[in-house]
């Protein structure tokens, strides 16, 4: 990624004539970023989101709300500045354009403006402390390295990305159906994962303990270093959320996609990992014996993984198996390969800073675009617009009078639309209602207090 930067008049990227002349070298640098922040980054939308309806138009609005939100910037050369706060969209926009941060993080809303924090104590009565913060989740595909063979570490391809897709489906459904949340934003993290922002008022006001409880609800892990099985599902049946996730998402994905695509049972090295998860050694040996015999010949034209999986299932799920540990063995295998792996620490603390949507990832140049959970199957991380691609698209359009909504000329337009229609507008509507109701309730209260 370290190509030479051309030095000639960066602002003048527009060159007359179509085609090759518009090509922008594929890189990530401050100059590109400057243009991005100048023309494409949706400052006003971010402001509206972070204001949660407190735009001053209603008497019930809290005018200090936006100003109490912490932002942090990572500048070029890894300089990191925390506790940035702004009182208006203009301040926000100007600061971003001026500082040109390589990364923008969003922190909590504090009890007072972070800029004034030094005047307040850490404990006692006059306190500087977080009071609101979205419930957030971070899922990173590098946490799945033990179950994907196509890529490792920071790489992602269309074979393994679906692991993220099903994580989104499982968590999103649960957040809505089980926890009753409605305003949920899923964002591509720019390289190898996804972030989730739950923005309901109730979610923003959760304590650390409550956040930890939700994270633990989603956590399925045995955690015994002596065991080869990382997931244990005791009990006669699965808890409703787990059962639903299994039947609606995980089972189908595992059997139809992951198993054949990652060749989980095709070679000894790979099938041993699954056999290790079977607590009954005699069952495991039986399967091992069969598969070793069938190394080369494939009995049918069906995928060998699927054939072997059926064999495994039929032994484990036959009525003959009485052993306790085998009851849920098939589900446990499926869960250990496909169930979402969350970064617990991110979710548990109100003061955890998380990257803002619409940032550009320095290592890939890709924009952190929203993902519509209702269409997450369609999302393709390899076609997410990059910084240079967007600038190229801007060039193609030629200069325009109207500086507003430049993103519509580019592939970013679609993402901004998704952000607005599926997330921001319903959220703001709900916030306005909340502000009105709360205001009316207070009015009523004071009326009652005054009444004789």
């Amino acid at each position: 990624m370290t190509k030479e930067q051309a030095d000639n008049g960066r602002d003048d990227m527009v060159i007359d004539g179509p085609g090759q002349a518009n090509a922008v070298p594929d890189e990530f640098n401050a100059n590109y970023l400057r243009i991005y922040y100048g023309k494409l980054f949706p400052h006003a939308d971010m402001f509206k989101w972070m204001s949660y309806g407190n735009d001053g138009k209603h008497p019930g609005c809290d005018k200090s709300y936006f100003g109490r939100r912490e932002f942090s910037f990572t500048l070029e050369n890894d300089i990191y500045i925390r506790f940035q706060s702004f009182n208006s969209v203009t301040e926000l926009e100007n600061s971003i354009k001026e500082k040109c941060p390589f990364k923008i993080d969003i922190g909590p809303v504090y009890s007072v403006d972070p800029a004034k924090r030094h005047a307040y104590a850490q404990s006692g009565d006059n306190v500087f402390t977080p009071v609101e913060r979205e419930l957030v989740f971070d899922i990173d595909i590098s946490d799945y390295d033990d179950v994907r063979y196509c890529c490792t570490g920071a790489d992602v391809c269309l074979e393994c990305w679906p692991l993220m897709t099903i994580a989104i489906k499982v968590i999103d459904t649960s957040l809505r159906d089980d926890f009753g949340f409605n305003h949920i934003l899923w964002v591509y993290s720019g390289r190898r994962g996804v972030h989730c922002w739950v923005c309901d008022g109730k979610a923003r006001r959760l304590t650390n303990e409550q956040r930890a409880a939700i994270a633990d609800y989603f956590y399925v892990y045995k955690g015994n270093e002596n065991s080869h099985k990382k997931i244990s599902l005791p009990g006669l049946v699965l808890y409703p959320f787990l059962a639903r996730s299994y039947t609606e998402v995980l089972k189908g994905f595992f059997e139809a996609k992951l198993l054949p695509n990652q060749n989980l049972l095709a070679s000894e090295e790979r099938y041993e990992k699954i056999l290790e998860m079977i607590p009954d050694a005699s069952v495991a040996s039986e399967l091992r014996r069969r598969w070793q015999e069938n190394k080369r010949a494939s009995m049918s034209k069906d995928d060998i993984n699927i054939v072997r999986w059926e064999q495994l299932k039929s032994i484990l799920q036959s009525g003959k198996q009485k052993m306790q540990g085998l009851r849920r063995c098939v589900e446990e295998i499926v869960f250990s390969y496909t169930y979402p792996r969350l970064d617990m620490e991110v979710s548990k603390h109100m003061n955890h800073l998380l990257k803002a949507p619409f940032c550009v990832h320095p290592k890939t140049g890709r924009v952190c675009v929203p993902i519509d959970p209702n269409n997450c199957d369609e999302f393709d991380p390899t076609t997410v617009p990059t910084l240079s691609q967007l600038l190229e698209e801007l060039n193609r359009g030629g200069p325009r009078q109207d500086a507003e909504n430049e993103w519509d000329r580019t592939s970013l337009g679609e993402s901004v639309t998704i952000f607005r229609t599926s997330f921001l507008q319903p959220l703001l509507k709900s916030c306005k209602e909340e502000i009105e109701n709360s205001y009316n309730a207070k009015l009523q209260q004071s009326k009652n207090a005054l009444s004789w």
Partner: protein
Amino acid sequence: MEVVQSQRKSSSNNVIVSILPLYRSAPPLEVRLEDFEFFAIDRLRVLKGLSDGLCRGKKPEEMEKLVLDLWKANMRHPQAVEEVNKDIISHFVLRLVYCRTEELRKWFLSMETTLFRHRFRWGSSEAQRALMSEFKLPYKAVSNAEFESLKDKLGQVARSMGQTLAAADAIFYKVPFEEVPDLVAGRRVFIHKGHAYVAINQVVSLVVTQFRSYLSKALILTNRKWTSTIREQEKDRLTPIVEALCTSYLGPDYSQQQEFGEISIKDIDQVAKTSFPLCMRHLFEKVKEDHHLKHGGRMQLGLFLKGVGLKLDDALAFWKAEFAPKVSAERFDKEYAYNIRHNYGREGKRTDYTPYSCQKIISVTPGIGDHHGCPYRHFSEENLRAALVRMGVSSRAVEDVMDKVHNRHYQLACTLTFEAVHGSSCDAGINHPNQYFIDSQRVLQSKNGSVA
């Protein structure tokens, strides 16, 4: 609790609702001095009876009956007002008695919480609801219609925890999920659209937890008040009663040897074989074998020997001799003698340390190279069986003992061992290694007519 009087008057016409006080504040009632003592003694009988029942591993249904019987026998009064007053007064008197040391507080807290749990359960649902609102728990009872629609899911949750949805559990309460983070974290409740459906036994748990945490804090405060003002102020009136109440009713702590006077060093080997409980036998064998014991083992065995009657000089000689192959006399004096003298109250703050009770020994977790703790809990099955056989326990008795161990009734296991080895029953159950020793000596003496 001064509202007690008016509550009775305004309560409805039907059955007397057993009002369960929360003991939030000391009652502004006048108490006669004799009642002060008698009420406390009656309550103490209930608590002690509870304690015995628990030690003997009574099943939950048996405990329910026991608590009811104890309460009826000692605390009932034909007039409800009088009963409530006695309830409250006796509780507060015992707080004074049992606030004074950590161990006393622990015992009192444990018994009062158990008593509260049972009394809460046998209360009517109105009484329960009233208490829940006193604790400010925002629970709503689930209507029959809603219950019917959710029955499947509620049953699924129960079965996922290895339980069943009994008819008795058909009472559910609905509460915002964030009010019950522990239950959500453990997936022990069904949640839907942000509501958690809490079963009655879980509600009991939550209420009891609140009660316990409140009482725990209150006891610390009571202790402070006692030491700073009350004890001195009341030295001619209440203090002697309070102090007498404690020592006459708590089990002996074996810090003074009672019946068998002294045991000298030459007797130890013999009594170890016949009268030591398994935990001390094991430590004793290990010190003979390894010529060393780590700190935990030295404390557990050393204090036990003190309780058995080993004098300080003999103790020093014993340990020195056992360690001699590995530790020179000078090094022993430098590194180990001080601690032994400390245990006997001859050094430092001169506390005369009491030998550990079973409860304490069971609760420790021995690490690598440690041999203390309770063998019934910490030994592997194999090792435990072998040790029991070496003690002379018959194979049938070994099975009974192992059965108790599997159900985690370690003290009952030790009791059965005692009975098997001595051929006589131990009705009180084993609560303390020194009690095992004394009872053993008693049995042997009555058999042989001499001290073993």
